[in-house]
């Protein structure tokens, strides 16, 4: 297809929503951090994020350009490269504050688990596509097990870092893509719910009645550190409480940009990263927050449309995976800021400060547009 034709078929609504979210992110990062200058520069975080935004948009264009069929053919390679990088992180990663999540690449420190989500979407799509060619056979629980193992390997590696939040995103992606591939929802949710319930019950029984479980003491402590939410055991409850005060006090119209008292007086923790939605809620109120959620909804709605209209099952799966990932992030992150989800440390896509996350999400939207552009079976 010619470039002109390609450009005409780009889903501009999705691209626009993505760009608007990135701009909103820059604004609120500035609002959240300008009172704490780094090295005398009160725009340090905002400038850094702007730089990442440029890199992110370039990534988006790059991922949209290569025909996704080619990417799908590379699925197994992507999968094993992903597993290798995650192993590398465990072996040679930079650790900080109790977790080993980063790799130093030249001057920048990247967080491979962010990119692992994209790699998983692509490789799992390729995996399910290959299986669907033998006819749909995802009706029974035991048909799902190869997929569980496929997603389970990278998921356990991420969990080991430890990064519970991202490993749960993997579950979200798994459910969404299985469903899109035609799995019967009942055994699907049954199996996953059963595993989660059994694990929770075992942990509860271990604590309450001393039930022996096949985990070392420190592993249990680590899991409990997640369940008693946040990395920051001491202040977790405080954080959610302060975040709710911030959001609630924003009321309908908010206190005005860069004028939130909870935000500006430093009562809000991690407010340019995981808790940035509290800044939004406080400063632009219910209406502003709904606009932000509306932009997410717009992006995800376009994603679903693209999934429905894709020329092949592979395209549908990629788009469904991207939408699942975004939906999971938004639900957990905003839910955490509002006090209806546990604190698991997931960033708000496009908005939270952080280069790896922004780049990965841009790549995801790039894939979405990629599938949308190439939706026609017939080549002109």
């Amino acid at each position: 297809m010619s470039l002109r034709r390609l450009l005409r078929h780009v889903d501009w609504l999705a691209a626009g929503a993505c760009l608007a979210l990135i701009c909103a992110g820059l604004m609120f990062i500035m609002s959240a951090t300008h009172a704490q200058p780094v090295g005398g520069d009160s725009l340090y975080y905002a400038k850094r994020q702007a730089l990442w935004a440029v890199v992110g948009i370039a990534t988006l264009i790059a991922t949209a350009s290569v025909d996704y069929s080619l990417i799908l053919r590379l699925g197994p390679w992507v999968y094993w490269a992903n597993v290798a990088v995650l192993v590398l992180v465990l072996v040679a990663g930079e650790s900080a504050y109790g977790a080993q999540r980063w790799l130093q690449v030249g001057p920048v420190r990247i967080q491979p688990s962010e990119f692992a989500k994209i790699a998983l979407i692509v490789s799992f799509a390729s995996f399910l596509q290959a299986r669907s060619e033998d006819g749909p056979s995802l009706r029974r629980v035991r048909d799902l097990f190869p997929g569980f193992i496929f997603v389970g390997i990278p998921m356990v590696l991420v969990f080991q870092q430890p990064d519970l939040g991202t490993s749960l995103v993997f579950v979200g992606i798994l459910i969404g893509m299985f469903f899109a591939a035609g799995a019967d929802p009942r055994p699907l949710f049954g199996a996953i719910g059963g595993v989660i319930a059994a694990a929770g019950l075992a942990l509860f029984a271990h604590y309450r009645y001393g039930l022996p479980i096949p985990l070392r003491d420190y592993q249990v402590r680590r899991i409990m550190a997640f369940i008693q939410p946040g990395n920051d055991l001491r202040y977790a409850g405080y954080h959610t409480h302060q975040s709710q005060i911030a959001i609630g006090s924003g009321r309908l119209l908010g206190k005005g940009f860069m004028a939130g008292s909870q935000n500006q007086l430093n009562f809000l923790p991690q407010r340019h990263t995981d808790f940035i939605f509290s800044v939004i809620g406080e400063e632009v109120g219910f209406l502003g927050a709904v606009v932000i959620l509306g932009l997410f909804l717009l992006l995800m709605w376009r994603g679903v449309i693209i999934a429905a209209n894709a020329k092949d099952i592979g395209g549908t799966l990629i788009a469904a995976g991207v939408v699942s990932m975004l939906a999971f992030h938004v639900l957990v992150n905003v839910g955490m800021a509002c006090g209806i989800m546990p604190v698991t440390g997931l960033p708000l896509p496009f908005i939270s400060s952080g280069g790896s996350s922004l780049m990965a999400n841009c790549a995801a939207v790039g894939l979405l547009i990629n599938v949308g552009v190439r939706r026609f079976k017939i080549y002109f």
Partner: protein
Amino acid sequence: MSELRALIPDANRGEIERRMGKFLVAVILCVGVLVGRLGYLQIVRGAHYEALARGNRIRLVSLTAPRGVLYDRNGALIATSRPAFAASLVYMGEEYSEETLAKLETILSLPPGRIRQLLAQQSGRLYLPVRLKTDISLEEHSRLEEHRHELPGLVIEVLPIREYPHGELAAHTLGYVGLLAGEDPRLQELAAAQESLRAAAGLPPAIYEVNDMIGISGLERQYDPILRGLDGTREVEVDSRGTPTRTEREVPPDPGLSLKLTIDLPLQQALESSLRANMEKLQKSKGVTYATAGCGVVLDVRTGAIRAMASLPAFDPNAFASGNVDVSSVEWLNRVTQGKYIPGSVYKMITAMAALEEGVIGPRETVYCGGGYRLGRDYIRCWVGPPGHGYSNIVQAIQRSCNTFFLEMGARLRSKMRAADPGLGGVDILAEYAAEFGLDSPTGVDIPGERAGSVSRTGSRQLLPGEDIQHAIGQSTHVYTPLQLAQYIATLAADGKRYRPYLVEEVRQGDEVLYRSQPEQVAQVQRVSQETMDIVKSGMLAVTSPGGTGYWSFWDIPVKVGGKTGTAQTGRLPDNALFAGFAPYDNPEIAWIIIIEGGDSGALSCAPVARELVRTYFGLGTPGSVAQPAGVGR
């Protein structure tokens, strides 16, 4: 969607569209739940939260976890915690007046502007009280109470602080704790490094924050992640004066784990007091250039456990425990692990073993000493002076520390090496033997900042003429840490088994032992036969026997001791004095090295310290003085 439907000629199209429809419903539901929750928080309960935000009166009070206790090998207390008062300021939602701050600074005798600085440091965490001064005196406490009505936001907290009941004892080994200052990048780095250690040990993350106490040196630093515990927190509501009125919730602190050290308290005390006494005596009788510093370390020959380790002059770690003294820029040298010393005659056992194994001398062969040795154009006097030691075999040469004999060995080793390869020298063969006894590598002791000396080789740099022969008597340019030297003696005493020295025997939680150290043998000497080691050790026994350089410190000791005196020429007078040894001779348990800088004579300055070590370790009655007739050799 309808116009697109036509473009998908797939049979599955309908099915996929149905599924995607459900998918969209799920996504809309997710967003809907969030919008609903936002509506509840911001519209239904908005007024309530707005009131809360306006009078945000909830503060966190940190409940400091007591640091883990340090015990000696027999359970005697070496470091613990005591309760202290700290003055802190709670943020009241508005700027403090200069007047209030000035008053606080006067009462607490802080420099003007200090409180502003502290507030600025903690600007990111104003929901925590800003700690102004820890361990305030009773007088400061009562003056604060007196002026309380003028000081809104002031709270007095009770928290545990580190206490070392024995003061300066083992100060360099234990180290000290200090304040984790917000602006100090070195400490931030330390905190990050320790965080990952803690994670590796499977402990939940320890949270390092401004105002936290942190181990800065010695064991306090090495084991900080284990010792520090996990602070608790109390969420309180404060009234308009900052006084807590109600506790919302509380997470109690989790105390740090305790360590049982390998240190033997009585032995450590004997080492330090006797080292100190001998240094003072030297300074008094000979002048202030003598005995400026000293150190010693005692190893368990069978395991590598460090039974005593002292470095003088020392400091009192209690002085820093409150965190009110700025210690971030201070660096104290632990001479045992960080000082580098010329070994002097203590090195002669290496030369002896090399000479025997290389076959340049037989076990009974003698060498004549006429009081000196001609080396090129120089004439090196043997320390005894004319008429010299006469004929000595290798055992007698160690006993008398005969320089002539060992210089001759150096010359013979050089000839042998040059015959094989003209580019090499005697040092190269000595280096191989010294390395086998650990003198070429750090010991790996579990204390931060260990340095290590290394052996010289011809390839490494241009050697001075005669330097490689001087090496044979332990002089000239090679230097080692006292811990390396002690490890070398211990390895010899253990018939070639080299152990990694260590300081922590057990990690405990209350009475429960969580971890117990296992002795770690790092090497086994290969080049030296048992027979050779026995000959050399018998030379060391002869040192403490009649006619030996160390006899006068051990003549009345019923335990058989192997020893070696040493005097190292540093180029500055007086010389450094050394005494190395092990005991009991037949079944060695401990090995040691004692060094006094400017101690002049190993036999006179350091051997008496070793005598006290042996008396204490083997329970030989109360410490007594030792006859020291004039004219005893070095």
